[in-house]
């Protein structure tokens, strides 16, 4: 019985520590206009860098205009080099270094969720009116 309680205690402490550290990062979306979203020649460009995850993780963009997602890689060989957007059936492998564009068409209002090819690096774009 003693062993059992000690085991459970140790396990819980470990899990708690893991969650504390995992929740460490504060991810507030940047205000629109001064961030990674720009409109050039009636085309909205959302810039994300992909290395060890995606940055910024949350973007706010306008819905209803032609939009591309532009990924910048620089020596990226981790999971973030394969981009997956399930709702648009996009699975794109980025070149290890360079710029890769993914055409999003004309997005509707809503949150577009994506991740790397194994699922543990997420990103999302909030399309607003």
């Amino acid at each position: 019985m003693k062993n059992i309680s000690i085991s459970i205690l140790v396990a819980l402490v470990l899990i708690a520590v893991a969650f504390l550290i995992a929740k460490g990062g504060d991810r507030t979306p940047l205000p629109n206009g001064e961030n990674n979203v720009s409109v050039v020649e009636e085309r909205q460009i959302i810039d994300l860098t992909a290395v060890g995850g995606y940055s910024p993780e949350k973007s706010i963009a306008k819905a209803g205009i032609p939009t591309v997602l532009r990924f910048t890689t620089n020596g990226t060989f981790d999971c973030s080099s394969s981009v997956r957007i399930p709702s648009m059936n996009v699975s794109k492998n980025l070149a290890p270094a360079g710029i890769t564009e993914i055409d999003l068409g004309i997005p509707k209002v809503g949150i577009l969720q994506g991740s790397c090819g194994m699922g543990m690096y997420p990103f999302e774009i909030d399309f607003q009116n």
Partner: protein
Amino acid sequence: MKKYTFHVSGTHCASCKILIEDILKEQDFVKDVQVNLKKEIVEIETDSDQNPEDLAQILTSKTIANGYAISVDKKDLPAVVGDDNVFWKALPLGLAFVVLFFLLQKSGILNLSFGSSITPTTSFLIGIIASFSSCLAVVGGLILSLSAKIAKDDDGKNKKPLILFHMGRLVSFAVLGGLLGILGKEIGVSFIFSTILGLLASVVMLLLGINLLGIFKKNIFTLPSNLFSFFRKIEHATLAPIVVGIGTFFLPCGFTQAMQITALSSGSFISGMFIMFSFALGTLPVLALLSFSSVSFAHSKYAPLFFKSAGVVVIVLALFNLINSLVVLGLIPPIFNF
């Protein structure tokens, strides 16, 4: 000198024979030990004057930590001895291992940049990084579960399937990398194919993990018979471990995919081959350590603890992979965030 025959319980694996004999031989009064796994008996030659009941109790006190009980009468043996005890040690040990692994992912240590030009040297380094990355959850988890299973079933002596697996992996990475080099930009490993293969690997890991834990009695949980015969093939046939080794080329792993893209754009068989081969070579140390240490552990007195800890690790990683597969298939929103 007297000879006694005792009943023994907890002999769930082939290596148990060696383990029990090793433990009992360490006792001064024990001159000779023979374990018969089929009959679940242990024959002991001793110069001790104690009666068999007391002797059985002394011997049990030595083996109980490893999950074995020894008794004169079969009726006196508990069904699963000491199993709970080992399980409660294995649970925090396995979880600690998984937590360390996740912390390593979260730490960002692995987010190294390698520049854009890839030589066999850099792909070797990328291979080493990859072998500590989240890819370890898929490929490493699969290897750990298969090697532990092989070691558990086969007396811990059979290293042939492990060697064949690693050979299959190295050779297939070289050949397939070369092919990607010739075929050029238009060809790639299909996303759906690798995701389905990843799902399959997770299910196999989950089943093997539960099997390694051994918390369910044999009659409650057994592997489906065709799956079981598949594992027997992996353990004994030549082809099956090679096929699993080749299969790892297609498993979902960001690093493998990035290297495949690099091999694709390399433009020739030779450079594609060198890129993928050096990458696989870079992943070899960690993967070989995982598989061959399973064999060593299975041979030591820590075997029951190792199998159960490995079971915990494999189950948690399998669940992690399953959730991630559902995420990339778009069935659930992203849950993990490294």
